């Protein structure tokens, strides 16, 4: 069994690591000191060469994203650290902010430097009370020591950080909704183009990076791109924090190289399934990523590996579901989450995300019709790729894949009905008619 590697997580079990003295004693702010003495181009180059990919969900190469920023600023540039962590199953950023806030501050300053920004915002999820307090305290400490603010570490560079607390909307983790929210507006994703590197916060060039992404950067600066590439796979180098939850004996965060097989993560690191029960399905990267079946447990957990099983790496948030799991109920619950969180701006997502759980609740209650399954797939197809932001896809995929990969479970539930005597007409809900008697036409 491969041991965990301790890079981003190296301070997780260290007492008082949130204080600057402990952080510095353990090598903190060395990456920052080094970076500020490199040119902007050199910093971008190292991160590009390291192959680091964003940990916010989309897995976009960080160095490449930075290189999209204008080379000669005409307007202020901004870095936004995305600390809104809302994807169900994901709890890595919270751990970083609460136990190792200085590592984030260090990463933010380097990231801001790399995109020629003098001001960075951290959009902190509203529910992160402790994290916000720790981050605020750390920011004051870092400012007092000259790592944030003016003339950083005596190099003449000025970069400041502003903390901003969200108000509890998942959609505000989407980068353009985040920017709107940061500007004090309703958290509505913006239509793209324009893209953030040209028109971001307050209409100025902006880069949005995830907490874990930024926390990784100081280590790459310190140890070099080759060192980073010595871990993980060619297309997905380095390590990441896998957050394992659900039916496992030792749920938690595990820092492992990308490409570690899912089976190893679940059985060796997370201690396997309680009671030795079989696995039914695994959500590999947060609730929006397509579910894997037990046959797919040998999938390497990296961007390419997951694509081979038509899923996505997402945020590395692994949700394990054993054989006792009611997939219909899981699907309904996920659908309800997306219904609750859709911003409601664009038609397919607003209406589709509301319609899907209605059907699923009906199926779960024993009022399903066989046609409902194809209807659900058709609704998903009408949402996917038709929306302003990727939320529409995120809301549709789990439904589509849960049905296509566990269709028998749904059919079983529909066939079994409510399991109770015929309920007769259901007033209101189905216009007084039995659901299974109402014909439905389904187009592909």
């Amino acid at each position, binding site marked *: 069994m491969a041991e965990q590697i301790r890079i981003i997580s190296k301070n997780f079990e260290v007492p008082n690591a949130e204080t600057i003295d402990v952080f510095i004693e353990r090598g903190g702010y060395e990456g920052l000191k080094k970076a500020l003495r490199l040119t902007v181009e050199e910093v971008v180059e190292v991160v590009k060469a390291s192959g680091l990919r964003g940990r916010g969900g989309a897995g976009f190469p960080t160095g490449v994203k930075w290189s999209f920023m204008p080379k000669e600023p005409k307007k202020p540039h901004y870095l936004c650290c995305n600390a809104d962590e809302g994807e169900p199953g994901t709890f890595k950023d919270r751990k970083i902010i609460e136990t190792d806030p200085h590592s984030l501050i260090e990463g933010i300053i380097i990231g801001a430097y790399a995109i020629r920004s003098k001001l960075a915002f951290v959009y902190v999820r509203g529910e992160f009370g402790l994290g916000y307090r720790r981050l605020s305290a750390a920011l004051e400490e870092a400012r007092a020591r000259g790592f944030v603010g003016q003339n950083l570490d005596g190099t003449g560079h000025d970069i400041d950080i502003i903390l901003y607390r969200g108000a509890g*909307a998942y*959609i505000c983790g989407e980068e353009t909704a985040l920017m709107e929210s940061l500007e004090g507006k*309703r958290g*509505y994703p913006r*239509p793209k*183009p324009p893209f953030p590197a040209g028109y971001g916060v307050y209409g100025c060039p902006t880069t949005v990076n995830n907490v874990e992404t930024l926390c990784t950067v100081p280590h790459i600066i310190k140890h070099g791109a080759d060192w980073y590439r010595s871990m993980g796979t060619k297309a997905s180098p380095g390590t990441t924090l896998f957050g394992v939850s659900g039916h496992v004996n030792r749920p938690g965060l595990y820092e492992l190289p990308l490409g570690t097989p899912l089976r190893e993560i679940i059985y060796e690191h997370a201690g396997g399934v309680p009671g030795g029960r079989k696995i039914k399905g695994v959500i590999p990267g947060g609730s929006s990523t397509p579910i894997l079946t037990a046959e797919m447990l040998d999938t390497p957990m990296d961007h390419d590996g997951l694509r081979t099983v038509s899923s996505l790496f997402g945020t590395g948030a692994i949700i394990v579901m054993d054989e006792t799991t009611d997939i219909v109920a899981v699907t309904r619950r996920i659908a309800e989450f997306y*219904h*609750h*969180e*859709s*911003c*409601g*701006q*664009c*038609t*397919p997502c*607003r*209406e*589709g*995300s*509301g*319609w899907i759980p*209605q*059907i699923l609740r*009906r199926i779960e209650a024993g009022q399903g019709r066989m046609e409902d399954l194809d*209807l659900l797939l*058709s609704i998903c*197809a*009408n949402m996917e*790729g*038709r*929306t*302003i932001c990727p939320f529409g896809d995120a809301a549709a995929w789990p439904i589509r894949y849960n049905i296509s990969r566990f269709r028998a479970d749904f059919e079983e539930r529909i066939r079994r009905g409510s399991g109770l005597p015929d309920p007769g007409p259901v007033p*209101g*809900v*189905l*216009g007084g008619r039995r*659901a299974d008697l*109402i014909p*439905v*036409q*389904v*187009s592909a």
Partner: protein
Amino acid sequence: MPKVTIDGKEITVNPGTTVIVAAKQLGITIPHYCWHEKLSIAGNCRMCLVEVVGQPKPLIACNTQATDGMVVKTTSEMAVQARQGVMEFLLVNHPLDCPICDQCGECKLQDYAFEHGQGYSRFIEEKVHKPKRVPVGPRVMLDAERCILCSRCIRFCDEITKTSELGFLQRGNHVEIGTSPGRQLDNNYSMNTIDLCPVGALTNRDYRFKSRVWEMAQTASICPGCSTGCNITVWHRHGQIMRLTPRINDTVNEHWMCDTGRLGYKYVHAATRLATPLVKSGAAQRPTAWRNALRQAAELLKGAKAAALAGLAGPFATNEELYLFRKLLTQVLGGKRLDCRPRDKGPESADGFLYKADKSPNYRGARELGCVAAGKEGWESILAGIEAGEISVLYVLHEDPVGEFGESDRIRAALGKLQGLLVQDILPTATTQLAHLVLAGSAFPERDGSFTNDGGRVQRLHRAFHPPGDARADWRILRDLAQQLGAEWAYDSPADIMQEIAVEVPAYVKAVYAELGSLGVALQA
């Protein structure tokens, strides 16, 4: 310059042009709800999804720039399927009760459901219910269930009036539009949101449920409410105005009009409208027939020497009426004293947008057509002349000096001294009450003719319906009066009059009706 192909037709467009605009230039309408040429791009309705060859997913035409070599298909399977999907989603939570909706017949949702819908519903669940009959403002009613959340109304208030009364509340399929607590949609352009609303969510509190759209006739006209001269459509039924809506004219009012103008038509149907000529008899005025009225009017005018005759024109008369009025007074009767005053309510009564300080529609026309006295010869001197007994007969056309010019006691006293006061108007006023003879004219929707707005644009009014009772078109009253006075005036219509104006008044050389079209023409410098 990028050259794009849309549905097989090629067009070269300016860089930055979006696909929806390029298609429009080709005469292809890509279905849409949220996009509006005068508002920012929201991209939220997704109705304008089209296929762009080479792209795996459909793209929204409103936010996709046309690039060189781009091939767009608006009727391919991908595009049609995407539109159908959007239509289905829009109808999921929309009430399906068109027959009792006020928008029925002019609803984009209805139109596109007909064109792009499937004709059946796969939705059998309970719809989301939202508030109905919400008075979001004094003039606008909201039915939140009918709202498709296109944000046009919100963007209008953010971007055009910059008053930002409206916003979205809640999330997901519970989203509604609304105002913040304590606020109302009450700016003077609020009713434009009704026109912008593609569905029956925002309705006109003055008009809602008074008529079905298809029962009304539409007549192009000009708002008489101020000197801007917003282009409007008069929607009428059985000789009654049901509503006014703005008519697009980018050089004047774009797509908009103010609420004051939109609701300013009520006087047209006032029960007190003058429906026959009136002649003074003792202390009272009694109705008389036109033949008698015209004969008496002619006698009254002839009864004074030319020097004792004066005219006061109102800036509410059309160019054609003003021209005839001046011609009658100066050429037929040889009079010299004529004036017209603007209805200027001061700069604070203007809003810097469309609503101007001068609340009359044709003062500019009066000036151009010689009805405004030069220098000291104006109304003040006419009034002084009346007081001094030098002027004994006054002909007033669509004006109410007693009620509107201030110092009403003085004016009332002066007019009381006249031997002859002839007033042509549409409603009883403080001035008509003093008149020896009242001639019943026409209100704006009853008129054919033109106004010249403050920017020097000559614009056509069309007659929507006839004036009440025996009231007549003002140009005709003036012509008949001239004939009564012996002049050989052969005008058969306002078009004939404008034909003459175009010859006689150089600024109007291009203003013949054939040229005015629906958008008008500028005066020639």
